[in-house]
């Protein structure tokens, strides 16, 4: 069992490294990627490599102005309601990330003209983890996170 985990872990880190290398080598052009579905970002195994693939950088600044509404305890990890509200102007994208999911990037909302800094959706979470919201506004990236406890097995935690 321990060995199995080690195997998966190794595989995961190799894959993430490969994505990172591809990005830095300029094989993937992150700015154009948003036009099409960014498979590298959604397949990335870590938060940083997902952000690298999606935005071209993972230099995020934590901000207490972003508010995440999600349950403290989610009894059903398959349906976790998450709302993100951000007060910034000129918001480009709002991304929702479940930190400990196998592929952390869950959704990226690209806001057009006139859109407010608010999105709400429902996501799947594999286990207890932080839900991270990354807001890109005016060329800078801000983030906030909130822990959601996921109880598996339906004992109601």
């Amino acid at each position, binding site marked *: 069992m321990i060995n199995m985990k080690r195997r998966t872990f190794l595989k995961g880190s190799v894959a993430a490294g490969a994505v990172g290398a591809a990005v830095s080598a300029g094989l993937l052009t992150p700015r154009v990627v948003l036009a099409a579905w960014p498979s590298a970002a959604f397949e990335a195994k870590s938060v940083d490599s997902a952000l690298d693939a999606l935005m071209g950088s993972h230099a995020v600044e934590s901000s207490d102005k972003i508010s995440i509404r999600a349950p403290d305890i989610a009894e059903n990890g398959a349906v976790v309601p998450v709302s993100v509200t951000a007060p910034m102007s000129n918001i480009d994208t709002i991304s929702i990330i479940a930190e400990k999911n196998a592929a952390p990037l869950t959704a990226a909302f*690209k806001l057009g003209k006139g859109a407010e800094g608010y*999105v709400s959706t429902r996501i799947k979470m594999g286990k207890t983890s932080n839900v991270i919201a990354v807001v890109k506004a005016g060329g800078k990236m801000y983030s906030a996170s909130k822990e959601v406890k996921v109880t598996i097995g339906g004992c109601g935690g």
Partner: protein
Amino acid sequence: MATIKIRAKLQGDETTVKALIQHPMDTGQVKDKKTGKLIPAHFIQEVNCELNGTNVMTALWGPAVSKNPYLSFKFKGAKSGDTLKLSWVDNKGESDSIETQVS
């Protein structure tokens, strides 16, 4: 088959859009209980929303968005009676769209 339910409500100068889409959102990691085989990944990759033909929001989704996805967002600049179009495309190339009036 209409797979989308949508509502666009104008309050003051702000329009709130709420949409529900019927879709299995299979991750490709779950086994079919009867056959023991993996159910292939089948999930929505992109949701587009246009107001009178101008894009107001594009959502890029991974397989970790819940089954039968719910989506809500807000924007400014719509008038009552404007046409809002929402469309989705999944990883198998299937798609659907719906039009509604802002009210």
